[in-house]
């Protein structure tokens, strides 16, 4: 909406963003990354469909990836509408390409998007849709994860020789921010990242 199209693009080009987005396995994360980087970088903010459309797309994608309490299929439909109108109505190629990316990503993996709405991220990339769990059978109670966790989300007692009756190690889901620091320090791979359980899938 500023008069001149910005000739100097700050930072990344659209192609780079696309490549980086493709590295993500989860299609929702792909789209989140693409839109975030587009808004922060090459978007010229000149025309409504692109400037306001991507703003709305970001809100909708956040709702899906964070499993917002009111998330629904309408969010996916809204994304589709935004994408189509950006292709049709955007001023420049950058906007139309961004619209196309949204539409293509949706077309290729609409099922995945729908699964997210049910609270399941197959690729375990959407942190709101994963849980960290300590395998009690594998845990050697070394206490490294307890030291690494800065959010006081892990409870448990370090094993000491000749003593019995320890409190086992456990992650408190309410406190866990899913930062992943505990996984990094667990040398015996006793901590695992899991998709949250999906009622429909379990039912099958």
């Amino acid at each position, binding site marked *: *909406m*500023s*008069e001149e199209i910005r000739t100097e693009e700050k930072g990344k080009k659209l192609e780079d963003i696309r490549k980086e987005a493709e590295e993500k396995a989860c299609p929702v994360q792909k789209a989140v990354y693409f839109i975030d980087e587009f*808004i922060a970088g090459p*978007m010229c*903010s*000149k*025309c*409504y*469909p692109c*400037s*306001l*459309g*991507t*703003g*709305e797309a970001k*809100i*909708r994608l956040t709702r899906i990836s964070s499993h917002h309490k009111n998330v629904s299929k309408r969010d996916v439909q*809204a994304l589709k*509408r*935004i994408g189509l*109108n950006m292709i*049709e*109505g*955007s*001023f420049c190629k950058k906007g139309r390409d961004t619209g196309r990316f949204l539409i293509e990503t949706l077309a290729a993996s609409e099922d995945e998007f729908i699964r997210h709405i049910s609270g399941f991220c197959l690729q375990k990339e959407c942190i709101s849709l994963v849980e960290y769990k300590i395998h009690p059978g594998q845990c050697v109670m070394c206490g490294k994860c307890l030291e690494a966790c800065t959010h006081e989300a892990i409870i448990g007692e370090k094993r000491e020789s000749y003593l019995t009756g320890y409190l086992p190690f456990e992650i408190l889901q309410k406190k866990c921010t899913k930062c992943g620091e505990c996984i990094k320090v667990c040398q015996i791979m006793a901590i695992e990242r899991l998709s949250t359980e999906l009622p429909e899938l379990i039912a099958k």
Partner: protein
Amino acid sequence: MEKLVKLQIDGTMVEAPAGMNLIDAAELAGIHIPNLCYLKGMKGIGACRLCLIEVEGLKAPVIACNTKVRDGMVIHTKNDKLNEVRKFVIDLILSMHPLDCMTCTKAGGCNLQKYAYEFDLKESSFTRKKFGYPVDEANPFIKRDPDYCILCGRCVRVCKEQGTNILEFMGRGIESKVLTANDKPLQESGCTFCGSCVDACPVNALLESDRLRKGREWEYEKINSVCLLCGNGCDITVSTKDGRIQKINSGAAAGSAEKYLCAYGRFGFDSIEAESRLTVPMKRIDGELKETTWEDALSIVADKLRKAGKEAGFISIAGIGNEDALILKKIAKNVVKTKNFDTTLSLYGETDSFRNSQKADIDKADLILLVDLNPSQWERALPALDASVRRRVSRGAKLIIINSADTKMADAATVNLQGNEISILKRIAKALIGKGFKADKKLGAAVKDVEVTEEIEKAATFIAEAKNPLIFSSPALFDASANIALIKGKVISVGLESNARGVVLMGLTTEGKTYKEMAGIESGKGQGAKSAVKVLYAVGEVPLQTRPEGLEFLIVQNSHLSGLARQADIVLPSATFLEAAGTIVDYMGRLKYLSKVIEPQGESKSHREIFIALAKVMGTAIKLPTETEVNKAVRIKTKLSFSPFIKKEGLDISPNEFIESINASLINSSRLLWLKETEKGVAV
């Protein structure tokens, strides 16, 4: 005549001038192409995407605001795909907009509301976004509420185009915002409070700040008239409700460079009901002004004038209507039988320059010369001329400034020629003759000996290449400037008062004592000399601080109790320009019509009504001048002819001070006083 092209819009054949864009062309056929960011007269930027239309033969839709008509074009403005994009955009904007149309002052005049209605959008289907930006309402003129802003950028562009350049976009995407520099309140940002942005805003983001619960668009009666506060004589559209003025907007045609109104014209109207407004005649009893009746006041005035006869004199401002001027002359010459009648025009202009001044259209000018003129929006000295010239320059016209002093306008000039105006004009004439233009022999001889410098050559080349050069000149340098117009272009003498040209054409120019002689003004010294008359009748806000020396009797006929009126023996309350119909001839030579927008306050009457009543008391019946009488006086044929290159002497008042002093009562009795004081404060 412009070339016309034929095209088909939604099945209707339209003829449109070549170069016109599709939105304007469709409008000719009565077809509205939706748009939010388009502003007539300015290049389309295609931000809102509402004006996307389909052209047969083109793959993708194009924006109508920035696509020119072509012969044989077939366009479709409506189909499902286009409507979906439009609906999508309105839907998105609504998601960021406070949906409070039921209490919103702009309702009825809001484009967003109009399109929401058209596309049947009750509320947005997208996520509601709330911003809670602070409202800028620390001034009594313009309220800026960014929460309503739809980011169309019209205000930013309008402000940039006219050269004030206060508003700018900040931020990106949905977080964009229109700001002043450093997000300062308007009065600290260099804003002149012209309100062009208010006229441009399609929603409630920029609004007159006194509009709260003073009615909405559909409740107003809209009346076109003319502002008489300075030499520009701008067109205005006045909105009234219950017989009171609610707001004034620029009345110039959309798209014209003249679509401008300064703070005086737009916001000064509250002075009409101010305390200092005169509503009944007053006479001096025991040294004090006391209220009296019209009958009493007029009989005293009649008596004094009758006794004074040739020793009576009339001075008036030149910001009165043609009809007032005609009658004033009649009453002076035929009833009182004095030759002493003059206007403030003689302080800044010589009558011949207004008689010979040509007619022109600034929107057609592709080269503008400003000779010895220093218009300024910031000083409010012919601000509309400043704004229109800057607009023309923004739209591609060239500007040559010829002035011995430094001008603010120089920053917009293509060529700035600072130096002795006479010598520069002579050189330009010579350079033009050197380029093969034909000129009068006497003119050729007069410029034979001057030298042409590189800068002059450059300016002359621009004049030679221009299609419609237009010269605006001060009256003092009109003759010299007219010599250039004799070679090429048109020339306009720019007066400081709205009806300077009209007053001259109506013949209200002295045949006896001059304004200065009657007011006791000595050249270069100001007031102090003895008045040349015994009884002085002052009409309008004449710029005199003190009662002229040696007067036996002073009559002041004005709308407000001005400084001079306080020293008068009789004060007659007159109507303001918004309370009387009539005509003027503006500086461009156009006959403009004033409307009686509201009834005069109290017992005040228009100048002409007072004169007619006074003549009746004196035993002579004067009729209101007919339209034919005015038209006949306006329609004089003049031809420019060579005059020596001379700058007229004695016309050396400061335009800024003059315009401020003829509007002193208006400023002092309205919210403009706040502006003056704030501007002084900022300047310190």
